[in-house]
């Protein structure tokens, strides 16, 4: 099997399957071979699902041969972030406390993947319970950036972004609570979409912050994200916050390649201080491309975004402290019994003390503090008010423009270990991505070019809630414009991995 097929987009792989150029089994095996060859260098996968993936692929092949009408992505393999519950497949959320846990049920989005016939290659590495921006807090070792293996692949979904960037998978599932799909996309030269809150069911996502979490696509092209988004979106009766709306025409929007008359707002508060020079330069160039293609660039101010980080670091730990209470060693997962036996209370404390890593403990304690008697109003209550203010900023901005734009992350990928001991420095990575989570609005990150040290940077577009189509329209158009300018996808510029011909 040639290495060529795995470098194609998911849409192109799907076309090859439909044309009979390749079988789903061959395609799946090619990706498994690639993983075998390069994942030792990356550690993008925590669990491989070879047999099941190949069985799914063979099933798709026989159904295709029988002339059955299949989903367009049937037979195209996918990697799933390990925070998503998969029946019969280990699910750890990157934590020791869940080591060896095999869930008895599937997340709704996994059900949809299986129904559509996508072979699931395995589970991808992540920051423990999705708490981090570098995939370094994983209990199973960090994932490395395919562009520079001494650097982080972003987080929390660094496993998914690295897998897609390194051609281990054409598609991956990520989750985004404060930027965990978009920031990894930016630093690995890939595309990531955080849909409108409620667009994709949260049933079966191991919750970090219930009111912020949202699953979405991680891919190499905007069109691929649109294909995957259409597949996993839609109402789910098992998630009370799932939107009842019909799924939008994302693929059509991604293929439109036209931004004439589109009004793009540049968020004044998210382009200066703290953003690296070349990251800003690629951002400006991207805007210029769009302007030349007929878009209108408008400056907009979102003054309350400066409080978003603070609100986020109150709401997120508060909800997380509660959501993670169930990990107590009583019903599933790790149980640590202190020497000489102990009470249930002591076993719970010992289990949580040993089973959670430093960042998880930090956030649980922070959240416990923010919700504790006497502090609720000052912290959680105030943060919920800031949320209202951020929403108002979005509403005001979207009266003037169709989409908003900013650099996705302030810098290119930083070095492993660089910010691990400085929580605040790590948290600042999320400065541009957090407002969308607070307001529930959708966002996309698209590669904007190579910045500092020849590493990729990303541009983020934000749209009003339920207007995810606009992201695909602007993202698809910019991607086409930039690839014309670059003479090909940005990922073509990535260095080869030792394990395989890149």
């Amino acid at each position, binding site marked *: 099997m040639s290495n060529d097929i795995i470098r194609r987009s998911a849409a192109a792989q799907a076309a090859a399957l439909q044309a009979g150029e390749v079988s789903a089994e061959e395609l799946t095996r090619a990706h498994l071979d690639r993983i075998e060859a390069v994942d030792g260098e990356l550690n993008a996968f925590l669990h491989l699902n070879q047999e099941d993936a190949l069985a799914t692929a063979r099933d798709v092949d026989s159904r295709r041969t029988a002339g059955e009408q299949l989903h367009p992505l049937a037979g195209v393999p996918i990697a799933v972030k390990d925070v998503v519950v998969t029946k019969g497949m280990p699910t750890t959320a990157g934590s020791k406390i869940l080591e060896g846990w095999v869930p*008895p049920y599937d997340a709704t989005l996994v059900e949809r993947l299986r129904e559509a016939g996508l072979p699931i290659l395995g589970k991808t590495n992540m920051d423990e319970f999705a708490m981090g921006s570098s995939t370094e807090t994983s209990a199973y070792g960090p994932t490395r950036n395919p562009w520079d293996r001494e650097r982080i692949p972003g987080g929390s979904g660094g496993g998914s972004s690295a897998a897609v960037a390194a051609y281990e998978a054409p598609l991956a599932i990520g989750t985004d609570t404060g930027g965990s799909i978009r920031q990894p996309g930016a630093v690995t030269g890939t595309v990531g979409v955080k849909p409108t809150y409620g667009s994709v069911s949260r049933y079966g996502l191991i919750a970090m912050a219930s009111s912020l979490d949202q699953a979405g696509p991680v891919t190499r092209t905007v069109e691929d994200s649109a294909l995957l988004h259409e597949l996993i979106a839609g109402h789910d009766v098992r998630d009370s916050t799932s939107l009842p709306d019909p799924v939008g025409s994302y693929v059509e929007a991604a293929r439109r390649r036209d931004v004439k008359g589109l009004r793009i707002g540049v968020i004044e508060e998210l382009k200066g201080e703290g953003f690296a020079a070349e990251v800003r330069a690629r951002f400006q160039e991207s805007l210029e491309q769009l302007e030349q293609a007929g878009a209108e660039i408008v400056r907009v101010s979102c003054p309350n975004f400066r409080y978003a980080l603070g609100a986020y670091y109150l709401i997120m730990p508060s*909800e997380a402290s509660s959501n993670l209470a169930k990990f107590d060693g009583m019903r599933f997962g790790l149980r640590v019994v202190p020497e000489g036996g102990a009470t249930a209370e002591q076993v719970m404390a010992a289990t949580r003390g040993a089973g959670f890593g430093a960042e998880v403990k930090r956030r649980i304690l922070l959240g416990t503090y923010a919700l504790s008697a006497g502090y609720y109003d000052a912290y959680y209550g105030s943060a919920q008010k800031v949320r209202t203010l951020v929403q108002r900023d979005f509403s005001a901005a979207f009266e003037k423009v169709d989409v908003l734009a900013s650099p996705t992350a302030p810098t290119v990928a930083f070095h492993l270990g660089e910010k691990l001991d400085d929580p605040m420095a790590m948290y600042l990575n999320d400065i541009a991505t957090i407002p969308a989570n607070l307001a529930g609005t959708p966002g996309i990150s698209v590669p904007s070019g190579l910045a500092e040290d020849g590493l990729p940077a990303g541009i983020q577009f934000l749209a009003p809630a339920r207007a995810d189509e606009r992201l695909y329209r602007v993202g698809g158009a910019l991607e086409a414009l930039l690839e014309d300018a670059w003479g090909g996808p940005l990922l073509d510029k990535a260095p080869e991995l030792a394990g395989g011909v890149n």
Partner: protein
Amino acid sequence: MRTDPLVDYDEAVDRYDPVLGIEVHVELGTDTKMFDGAPNVFAADPNTAITPVSLGLPGTLPVVNGKAIEYAIKIGLALNCQIAEHCRFARKQYFYPDLTKNFQTSQYDEPIAFDGWIDVELEDGETVRVEIERAHMEEDAGKNTHLGGATGRIQGATRSLVDYNRAGVPLVEIVTRPIEGVGERAPEVAAAYVRTLRDIFRTLQVSEARMERGNVRADVNVSLRPSPESPLGTRTETKNVNSFRSIERSVRFEISRQAGILDAGGTVVQETRHFHEDTGETSSGRVKSDAEDYRYFPEPDLVPVAPSRAWVEELRAALPELPAARRRRLLGEWGYSDLEMRDVINAGALDLIESTVAAGASPQAARKWWMGELARTAKEHETELEQLAVTPAQIAELQGLVDGRKINDKIAKQVLGKVLEGKGDPAAIVEQEGLAVVSDDSVLTGAVDQAIAENPDVVEKIKGGKVQAIGALIGPIMKATRGQADAGRVREIIMERLGLS
């Protein structure tokens, strides 16, 4: 275990004014749980009535059972409460192995119903109005079985086994405002209040409301103060008392115990207490400390509940007749005296009599059976009227046979005995066993002639004018016909044969 000196109850209520506060939990009789589609069943193999949601597995999410909301609103309306226009669920957070998520999804500062009242009727007919502060929804916890201890109790246990079948069963918790001014009748009021709620739950058909199954559980707060003008004293909360008698006994005990402490110049400790059926005493449980911090916050996985006014009014209009109104109506319809009615209610015979009347019996006849023969039978067997193996329809049928002169009262009691033995319906028993009254003259005339022939001395007395001696002839005839002869007709035939008619 007990060290507090007890004060005689009468003295205690003479010196102190008791104040009550009662929290009643009722398990709703929905088909499924509060937040997931697991069946809401009482008896099942452990850990089988659960879904990933009720087990709180990672990734699972709750979705509100619409039927449970409907039931909660009905309860609120029956308790004369306001129904919230907008309310939320909250997480009450504490670690305990019977909680699958280590928080209980409950309502905190936004209950679905609030500001209500209910009139509670005591056995002597006196009525006490109890004010309801709130009724809110929440989920039940799993069940711990403690092993290794002496008597299955938590103290001394070495480990516990947990069954989560009950986890997530919908509950409504009803909280009273302080119940004041009931004096020495406090224990009775507490029990009558819970009984009143129990009856309402059953009438609304929102719960089977079986105390013995824990469908209805009461936490009873008691405090004492020197006089009704004094500020409220420190209260204790006796948890999970689950029979009316126990509620009454536990309040009585707490009043005596707290009076003892106060008499000795001590202070009552604010704590939860446990009631012991065997001794009738309460013992100290957990001390309620200020350190408890439940860190309530609005449940982010659920959206607010905002019952439309149209829906609330629709539910209000469809409420069934509540027990108190029904009692007033039946009293008028049946023409019982107040005392008779109270006896019927206290005997738990109201429903049975109503059904018997509905099946065709007169109110007087229905009362005669249920409060007479059947009450005696129930007492003999130490059971409740409704547990007897006879239906109101069978009683009405039995009375119909008497009214139609098919059988007499004496035979009717025999037939009832056979019904209770499970031998079938009254008419069928009479038929099968040939118990119908014999009024066939050819049969009776033969028996009369035989009696006349065998008792010449009696015949002489009758002919001599001592007509009352006729009983000595009737007796043997009734005996010969196993009581089935129509005694009136027998008398007529004797008089005819003796030429006295």
